């Protein structure tokens, strides 16, 4: 059986050159970067090199603006809470887009419980934030604007440079979560006008266990992890040197391969979506069309009349690894907040799959996925009462309405409204 990994947004395999670079830092160069002896000084050099490699990938002014933490989530927490606490006396208002990653959304919710207020700027049906809406949301009390570069679910590329100009004009720090884009799309923190930006090396062939935060010196930031004075006092705790070394190598390799990575992914994205949209009836692409507004590694699809977890399981049993934003896949039984924010019909959100491409995927893989997925859809529709009811004109399609029957949502509400036994 062919194995096709289409979940690069969750994790990528470690680059062999990154692994090679990391290995001696487990066993030979095991010193603590805070130590003043040979072992400590040696790893301090390694840390400096990784900072330079990361700074180069994102065009940071200086390697001193690069901080290492344990993962992307910690970086988002530090960016949001660290800036909010640092500017508490100036104001307690934040502005974020409605489709930020949970690490941003939940950090904001945490602050709201402590008296901050937050404006969530809505997105359009493609998932794009209007820079003018961000400008309108900023008040004299606003201490931070957070808008991601690329959405983790639907691949929408936000107009961060424009939003950055808005923030600069109003003098408000701007945090750009680049965790879904760095290593694939060009990231330029200066062009973005970012005061802070975060990056996730395990999504661009680096190791897990390390996240990277860029912080422009003009942005005030207080620590949220207290202890020693590692990372310029912004993030206490012993640095994970092997992972940081691996992240640096992954950043350097990414910088040299951005063009070929993008071209490869774009060709596969086109082949996969062309194939799926031809072979599978009643399928919809969520987010912007492939092109300048969408990262070439992402396809987010909804297949009507069937549910996402079943699709995911059958894909997996056929060697295809994918993700889903359906409520059945989430532990909270809620559909992805990104799909809600773009106003996707609940029926379509239920049938959601997220496919994210990587370097090792091939054109043959895409053809295999199209052919296999078409069979999976047929099998699940054969089991679905909704497909049958659509055939009989009881319910209508959201994707291609026939004008016959009621909506899926109306039908679902009716059958769910039945009193439980």
């Amino acid at each position: 059986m062919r194995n096709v990994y289409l979940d690069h947004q969750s994790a990528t395999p470690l680059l062999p050159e990154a692994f090679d670079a990391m290995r001696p830092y487990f066993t030979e160069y095991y010193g603590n970067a805070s130590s003043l002896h040979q072992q400590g000084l040696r790893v301090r050099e390694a840390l400096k090199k990784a900072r330079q490699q990361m700074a180069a990938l994102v065009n940071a002014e200086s390697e001193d603006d690069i901080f290492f933490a344990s993962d992307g989530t910690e970086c988002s927490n530090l960016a949001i809470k660290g800036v909010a606490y640092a500017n508490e006396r100036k104001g307690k208002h934040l502005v974020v887009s409605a489709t930020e990653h949970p690490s941003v959304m939940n950090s904001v919710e945490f602050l709201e419980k402590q008296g901050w207020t937050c404006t969530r700027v809505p997105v359009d049906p493609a998932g794009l934030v209007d820079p003018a809406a961000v400008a309108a949301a900023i008040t004299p009390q606003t201490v931070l604007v957070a808008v991601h570069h690329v959405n983790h679910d639907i691949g929408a590329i936000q107009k961060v440079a424009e939003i950055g100009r808005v923030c600069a004009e109003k003098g408000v720090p701007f945090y750009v979560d680049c965790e879904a884009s760095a290593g694939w799309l060009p990231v330029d923190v200066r062009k973005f006008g970012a005061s802070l930006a975060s990056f996730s090396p395990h999504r661009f062939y680096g190791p897990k266990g390390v996240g990277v935060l860029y912080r422009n010196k003009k942005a005030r930031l207080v620590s949220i992890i207290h202890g020693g004075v590692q990372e310029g006092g912004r993030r206490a705790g012993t640095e994970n040197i092997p992972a940081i070394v691996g992240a640096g190598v992954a950043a350097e390799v990414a910088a040299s391969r951005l063009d070929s990575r993008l071209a490869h992914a774009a060709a596969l994205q086109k082949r996969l979506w062309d194939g799926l949209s031809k072979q599978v009836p009643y399928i919809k692409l969520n987010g912007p069309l492939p092109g300048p507004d969408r990262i070439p590694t992402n396809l987010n699809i909804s297949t009507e009349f069937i549910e996402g977890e079943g699709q995911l399981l059958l894909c997996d049993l056929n060697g295809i690894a994918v993700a889903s934003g359906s409520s059945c896949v989430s532990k909270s039984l809620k559909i992805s907040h990104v799909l809600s924010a773009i106003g996707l019909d609940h029926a379509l959100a239920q049938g959601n799959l997220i496919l994210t491409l990587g370097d090792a995927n091939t054109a043959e893989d895409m053809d295999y996925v199209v052919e296999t997925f078409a069979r999976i859809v047929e099998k699940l529709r054969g089991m679905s009462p909704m497909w049958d009811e659509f055939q009989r004109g009881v319910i209508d399609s959201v994707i291609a309405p026939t004008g016959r029957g009621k909506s899926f949502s109306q039908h679902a509400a009716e059958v769910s409204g039945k009193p439980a036994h």
Partner: protein
Amino acid sequence: MSDTYTLYNPTVMDHFMNPRNMGDLKDADGVGEVGAAACGDIMKISLRIKDGKIEDARFKTFGCGSAIASSSMATELIKGRTIEEAMSFTNQEVVSALGGLPPVKIHCSVLAEEALKAALEDYIQRHPEASAKNAAVSVAA
């Protein structure tokens, strides 16, 4: 040693991959379709009932792996039972027969119980003569 990992236990996976009694019964005596407000899943069970006994059962499910497996197992379990017996059927039987479900998926088995009971209610509505015998049970349930 196996290097294959599955989200659910082998029994659940088997019922998901090879569902029993999948489909619709032509000229069913009772049909129940219910939805879970919590997650959006929809389940439909149709029954053939003869002489107060469930002769045959079929299901169709819009839902996750455990919802499909729950409806498959529920239809297996209730075949051959009397209406009275079926009225006291609970989701716990489905969970046990499947060898357990993850906590967040227990509601899938509840949906199977509700679909079955909706189908029985439909039968009783169509056959009022059967309801006299089961009225007490129906109200209790």
